[in-house]
């Protein structure tokens, strides 16, 4: 018995060791890719094998990063874009869910609106940018609207589908207690679809970044999208790349945070 146990433990330890080893190799190759990419880029740019004016170089980008942090402008731009994106995706998810609730409430209305939802969903929402800017005046409101509008319709469709798929027997239980339609929504439909709503949140983070960056392209006054357009106009591609990296990093962080939130909320 005891001998068997020892043997199993030994095998388990070996298994753990092999896992660790594999993990180490994965990290190693990830680091290699990172190093090869950036040192290659730096080298090609130094040797003028690629046009340094267009492709810049990691060292130039780093220098610019430090400058921009020191003069405080980068932080301002990041702050602007982050605020717009967060508000955009929260607003998009919220309004989408409310719309879904209205459609659930009135099946008749949902039949009427069905083709319009399909068209709106198919349409590239960023094309509405110029209209929004004129309607809401250039600035925060129109950019936040861009970040929101891009995710509203898809949220509506996904959440409404989830609402409809809730097991009708839960509603039956509530109806036997004389529940009103609002109580049915509050006690069964909404909580049952909470996981779906959270997962649309995750998709909407990505969408909102697109909406906000395009919005900033168009409004061109502040934010990371503005930095890209400005760099493009004055042909400063170091600035363009710097903005790209900052966007990549913050978009990733935001996505991870929402994922963390999802894990926390759904576990409960």
């Amino acid at each position: 018995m005891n001998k068997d146990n020892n043997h199993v433990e030994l095998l388990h330890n070996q298994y753990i060791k092999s896992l660790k080893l594999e993990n180490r190799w994965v990290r190693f190759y990830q680091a290699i890719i990172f190093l090869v990419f950036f040192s290659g880029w730096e080298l090609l740019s130094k040797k003028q094998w690629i046009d340094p004016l267009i492709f810049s170089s990691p060292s130039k980008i780093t220098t610019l990063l430090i400058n921009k942090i020191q003069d405080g402008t980068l932080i301002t731009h990041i702050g602007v874009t982050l605020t717009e994106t967060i508000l955009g995706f929260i607003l998009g998810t919220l309004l989408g869910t409310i719309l879904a609730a209205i459609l659930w409430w009135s099946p008749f209305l949902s039949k009427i609106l069905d083709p319009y939802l399909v068209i709106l969903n198919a349409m590239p929402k960023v094309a509405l940018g110029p209209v929004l800017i004129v309607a809401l005046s250039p600035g925060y409101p129109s950019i936040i609207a861009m970040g929101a509008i891009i995710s509203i319709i898809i949220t509506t469709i996904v959440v409404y589908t989830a609402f409809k798929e809730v097991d009708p027997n839960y509603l039956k239980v509530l109806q036997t207690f004389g529940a009103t339609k609002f109580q049915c929504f509050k006690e069964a439909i909404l909580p049952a679809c909470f996981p779906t709503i959270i997962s649309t949140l995750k998709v909407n983070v990505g969408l909102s970044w697109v909406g906000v960056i395009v919005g900033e392209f168009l409004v061109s006054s502040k934010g990371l999208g503005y930095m890209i357009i400005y760099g493009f106009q004055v042909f400063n591609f170091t600035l363009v790349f710097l903005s790209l990296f900052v966007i990549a990093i913050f978009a990733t962080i935001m996505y991870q945070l929402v994922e963390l939130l999802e894990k926390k909320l759904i576990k409960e």
Partner: protein
Amino acid sequence: MSFLKVQDIHHTYFTKDTATTALSDISLTVEEGEFVSFLGPSGCGKTTLLSIIASLIKPTEGTVLLENKPVSTSQNEIGYMLQQDYLFPWKTIEENILLGLKLSKQLNDQTKNYALTLLNQMGLNDDVKKQLPKQLSGGMRQRVALVRTLATEPKLLMLDEPFSALDYQTKLKLEDLVSNTLDEFGKTAILVTHDIGEAIAMSDRVFLLSPRPGRIHKTFEMPTELRGSSPFAARNHEAYPSIFQTIWKELESLEQG
């Protein structure tokens, strides 16, 4: 005057390309404190009939009167238990059993205590109160569902194949528990089942339904000696096999006809 009076019920379900007549010509009465069963093959309209009695579905024709008035769900006149427990997975056991009281705005210390006492009576101790349904076994969950149904003190209890998803042993135990609890409170109950034994063991009267469309084919009065005993004892009673045979033969003849 009868406690529950079901009169000339017809019901047809309409869809785009079909019209299914689920029930035809159903009339029956149930007295206060009586336990009756609807027995019949799957698809013969038992659930439809219960839903109509509970006023969850409006019948195409006919009326249902409880104490001479139409049934109203908002006054907690009926309790309805489904085949599966349908406990809300995100609510604790306590929140689940208090749901009916909360929805009808009857939740106070007294009704809450009553619900928790019921929980104890069902053999569930206070530890489960804060647990989630997924932490409980199937039998325990069905008992919680029963507490949820009884907590609003309904006048009429409806059980739609409440034990069919459980294993045999759990089912026998729950039959006794439900039967004793209902006897104790003198509740009127309607049980839907496709299990002949269960119908015999639990009821005072059995309505045998024939399918397509659902009609009352025959009514069986259970002998007094079976009515008095618990479901488990009834299954072992000497009068049980003969009545089982009678109903079995009727069911067989239905399937052939």
